[in-house]
């Protein structure tokens, strides 16, 4: 049966659609008829000004976490930088963010990361100002819809083909999601109370207006969650300029090249904005659709 969740473009068909998605068009009649379309029209909450201000200036690179140290995220307590961004000594970009979600559970996170890539609109309602659209390959969709796979594992090996503006213009970003093990976590330590769930992978980003001179930029994305008395604590790390090469983080910048500050700061601010929205929105939408993939 054909449903909005099973609508599939081939790669050749999908790619040119991203230029239209980048224009953030009005919802189509079919989209407007979706039961979650109302979220698209909500007023989007602004970040806490104090929080947003922490992304104003770069932090001290000496206090930043390198991806090779990702297992420090499994330590109790907090690292030197939990909110901030900077360029690392090797030129890579570093971003940390922390936000606490009262009333949110790890199950909600797992459901959301598996649920939202099935339709452009599911992605757009997350953060309408900057989310253009999303698509999956046939095999990715098959896995996401495979009820035999635990929700927390649905995204493992799946690639999200995202069209998104991270404060530096609309880009096509392919994000390959990994299991925590494949991402590089020490699985002997990957357990409660140090971690409740994880969503992360490696992305390649290139402008929607790609030409032969455009740079395709790698980044490692890490969203790790743990339970706190105040609610689920979301700790984000990005390492821009890094790729996961056969499971090992590698800075993939040409010698002497640094990720532009504007790109690092842009993604940092975008992250604060989209997860501020997330905080207010996830419990409500989970209450309506949680656990289901087809709605």
């Amino acid at each position, binding site marked *: 049966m054909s449903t909005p969740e099973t609508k599939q473009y081939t790669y050749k068909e999908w790619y040119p659609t991203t230029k239209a998605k980048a224009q953030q068009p009005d919802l189509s009649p079919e989209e407007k008829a979706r039961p979650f379309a109302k979220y698209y029209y909500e007023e989007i909450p602004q970040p806490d000004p104090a929080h947003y201000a922490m992304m104003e200036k770069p932090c001290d690179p000496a206090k930043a976490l390198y991806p090779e140290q990702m297992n420090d995220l499994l330590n109790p307590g907090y690292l030197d930088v939990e909110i901030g961004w900077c360029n690392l000594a090797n030129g890579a970009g570093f971003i940390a963010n922390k936000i606490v979600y009262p009333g949110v559970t790890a199950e909600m996170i797992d459901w959301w990361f598996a649920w939202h890539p099935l339709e452009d609109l599911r992605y757009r309602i997350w953060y309408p100002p900057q989310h253009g659209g999303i698509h999956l*390959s046939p095999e*990715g969709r098959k896995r996401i819809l495979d009820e035999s796979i635990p929700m927390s594992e649905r995204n493992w090996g799946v*690639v999200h083909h995202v069209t998104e503006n991270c404060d530096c213009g609309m880009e096509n970003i392919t994000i390959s999601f990994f299991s925590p093990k494949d991402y590089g976590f020490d699985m002997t330590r990957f357990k409660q109370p140090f971690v409740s769930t994880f969503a992360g992978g490696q992305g390649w980003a290139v402008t929607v207006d790609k030409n032969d001179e*455009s740079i*395709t930029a790698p980044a490692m994305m890490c969203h790790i969650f743990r339970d706190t008395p105040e609610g689920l604590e979301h700790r984000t790390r990005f390492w821009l300029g890094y790729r996961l090469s056969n499971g*090992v983080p*590698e800075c993939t910048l040409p010698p002497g090249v640094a990720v532009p500050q504007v790109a690092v700061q842009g993604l940092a601010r975008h992250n604060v904005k989209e997860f501020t929205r997330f905080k207010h929105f996830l419990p409500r939408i989970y209450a309506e659709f949680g656990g289901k993939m087809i709605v």
Partner: protein
Amino acid sequence: MPIKLMAASRKRPGLTRAEYQRYIEFYHGTIARQERFKIDSYVQNHVIDGAFGLLSDADHQNKVVDRDAVVEISFKNFREMMETLEPAVPSAASQDGKFFANESTNIIVMAEEEEIPVPTPLTTFNPGLGIVKGVGAMKVLQYIMRDEDVYPEDYKKYWRMAHEEAVEKAPYYKEQARRVQANWRCRANDNDGAARKHFKMVDPPVYDLVVTHWFDTMEQVGAFRQYVEAMQNSAGPKFANWSKSFYLYTKQIVIIRDTPLS
């Protein structure tokens, strides 16, 4: 992690294949040994023969249907590759290409290696002490063009399915393939303008996958023919544009390969 530059080229005007192969082995190769930079290892694959496209094609869809060598230059990581390709002072190697290659038709793939297990890594014919496996004197380089409808991530999966199916349907290949390596294109330096400029390419085709197959000798290369037919007729999802794919039978020439003192 290691990254490998694979450059397939053909002879420049005025050279025979023999003259081209002489040049790359003894001049280009020696330059790379004299100015090693961060090269970890360097092998050349000198083409003996090859086929381009499909028997069912009315005409060739590969822009170039003759290749004279594929050189493979390995680096410990992307940054060391870039340091070698674009040093502060242009390297002799980077200016040497025009003396042997028809550079505008170069095909460059920056690849990461994946070893694919083979059922029979050791020959039954004269295996000696039986302690050396996964080697062979005949090396086949198979450039497979992804079907444009297929997502790159699905392409990896479908190729592997087709490979496993072909191995089963090609019993002689199953018996004779000594080693298989999938070389997946890395999106770092995404075949973009800089790479085209560096390698003097004009509108190069982009290959997401080059599979290397090793066989004992040329006598066994028919195993590849059996395999490639099975793969082209595999029952799984369409994943390749075989008309734009090709394969080369080659002889490997080692240029740089360090052997630790024991």
